[in-house]
């Protein structure tokens, strides 16, 4: 028999009530009350948890995070690019053409290009660490719980969803704290819509190319679209295949703390260093694989329509023709299934050009601004990376749900991108 049927209310609420009753009784005997003082947390929570201004305040803080991430990191990206431009020039001097091409076009053109995005990733984690260490992010979860509960969703889902901003893999593992099987499954299936750090290089490249003065806002909009789509998708699941009532959300909010410089830098470093480690392993292997596919069969022009990568892209491109994606972009999207950063890496290899400015010029000649925004949304929403698919399989223990996640996310991404192209076409 379920605990709810025996005690007449949800066990989690009953336990919390009993705990606070006990605390109250102990305090009555042990505490001498003085004049009521406002703690700093009370002062800040009055606004940050306010039902009218709590969410706008969250959106403003998130916008500030991306403004800082995008604008302040740009010169540092340039400095890293200068370093790799020097290395590329040195590699081009190697007398053996194949080795020179592998180093200059494959490793430096692909991996070197992706490493320039280490700067915005560090800046983003620095800003997010400040919010997290101050105790604010728990408040964001609490504020959104009000909306999520009205939609019949589980408030506790918001914390793993927020973790998804960093990386979807640990976020999906964090759903273990959600008790109801359906609540947990809904959260697992919606986390891939949250924009992880791996998607950041794609946004930055496209936003800087097509939306120059509004680039930071375009990047910020991806995070907002991710949250909105995740909530709507969860609602759809709740109303269809995973019907039921959400269990209540009980959270003890931590007190606000002044973040320490060392703690914040350490958190940002731990997370940012993971990107550099990934670059040294997966992305290096990806760069070599992409280079091989771009020069095979031997004798074709690197990254041309006759290369293997060109043939793959052209075979699938008609499906994406309504979105206005070229075969180069389609090829990149396919390989980005290994890791989302590979999309940027493969654009560098396929276009066979050096540096951000050249890739931007190639992109401008290849797609329209509306298709570019659709590409950002498609990258945000379509099937997550290989590691995320693996963890979905592990945590759900089901191939059926894993396949459902992959297929539904591609469908959602395609429909969302198509809607952007159709609506955007009316205005532009």
């Amino acid at each position, binding site marked *: 028999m379920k605990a709810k049927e025996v005690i007449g209310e949800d066990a989690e609420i009953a336990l919390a009530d009993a705990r606070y009753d006990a605390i109250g009784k102990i305090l009555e005997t042990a505490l001498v009350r003085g004049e009521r003082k*406002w703690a700093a947390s009370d*002062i*800040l929570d009055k606004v940050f948890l306010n039902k009218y201004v709590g969410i706008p305040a969250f959106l403003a803080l998130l916008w500030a995070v991306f403004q800082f991430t995008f604008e302040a990191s740009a010169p540092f990206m340039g400095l890293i690019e200068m370093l790799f*431009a020097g290395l590329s020039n040195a590699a081009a001097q190697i007398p053996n053409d194949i080795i020179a091409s592998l180093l200059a076009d494959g490793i430096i053109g692909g991996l070197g290009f992706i490493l320039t995005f280490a700067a915005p990733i560090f800046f983003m984690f620095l800003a997010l660490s400040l919010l997290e260490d101050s105790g604010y992010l728990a408040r964001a979860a609490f504020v959104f719980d009000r909306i999520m509960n009205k939609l019949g969703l589980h408030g506790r889902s918001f914390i793993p969803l927020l973790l998804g901003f960093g990386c979807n893999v640990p976020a999906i593992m964090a759903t273990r704290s959600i008790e109801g099987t359906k609540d947990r499954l809904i959260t697992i299936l919606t986390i891939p819509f949250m924009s992880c750090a791996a998607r950041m290089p794609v946004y930055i490249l496209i936003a800087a190319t097509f939306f120059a003065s509004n680039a930071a806002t375009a990047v910020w909009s991806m995070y907002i679209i991710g949250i909105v789509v995740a909530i709507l998708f969860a609602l759809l699941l709740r109303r269809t295949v995973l019907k039921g009532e959400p269990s209540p959300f009980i959270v003890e909010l931590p007190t606000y703390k002044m973040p320490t410089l060392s703690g914040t830098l350490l958190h940002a470093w731990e997370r940012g260093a993971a990107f550099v480690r990934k670059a040294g392993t997966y992305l290096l292997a990806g760069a070599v694989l992409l280079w091989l596919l771009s020069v095979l069969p031997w004798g074709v022009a690197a990254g041309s329509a006759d290369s293997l990568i060109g043939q793959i892209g052209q075979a699938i491109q008609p499906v994406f023709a309504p979105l206005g994606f070229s075969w180069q972009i389609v090829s990149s999207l396919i390989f980005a299934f290994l890791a989302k950063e590979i999309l940027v890496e493969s654009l560098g290899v396929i276009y066979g050009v050096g540096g951000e400015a050249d890739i931007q010029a190639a992109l401008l000649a290849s797609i329209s601004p509306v298709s570019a925004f659709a590409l950002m949304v498609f990258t945000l929403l379509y099937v997550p990376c290989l590691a995320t698919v693996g963890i979905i399989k592990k945590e759900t223990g089901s191939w059926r749900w894993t396949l459902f996640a992959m297929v539904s996310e591609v469908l959602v991404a395609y429909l969302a991108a198509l809607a952007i192209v159709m609506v955007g076409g009316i205005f532009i």
Partner: protein
Amino acid sequence: MSINLKVKKRWAIYSLGLGFAYAAFGTLGILAGFSQTYGFNLVPPEVGTALIYPDAFGGIMLMIIGVIFLFGVRPQWRGAGEGASFLVVGAFLSAVFFAVYIAIMLSHAIGFAAFNIAPAPYAEIMADWAEWTWMNDLRSCIWLFAFATPSLQLALRLWKAR
């Protein structure tokens, strides 16, 4: 900490002024941003981007800060302690935006220095900052913060009285 009603009313008037200033410059930023997008300049160029920066979303963020200040006016006028929260958080948000734009200004200064120091073929990579001056990055949220700093005094008093 007890603050008498007269002082609270002063804070209320101050919140009203700050709220209107942020909301007004936010609205002008939104209008300037949209007018620029659609090819006509509602705000004449002589006004300068330091006063009104044509950025619709940046304007919305200024409006949010303004609204937070304005939410605190009535409770402060009535003498309710909670009104100070809106003033403190409004000041906190304005400080965050001030810090973000100062960081951006400093980083662009690094870009400008790198352009001038780097050897010829590589300096081109930093060409975006070739003509940078600090005036390019002066936004209304930087100088508006100067007017919001007295509210940090209240925040400090409340913080000390915890």
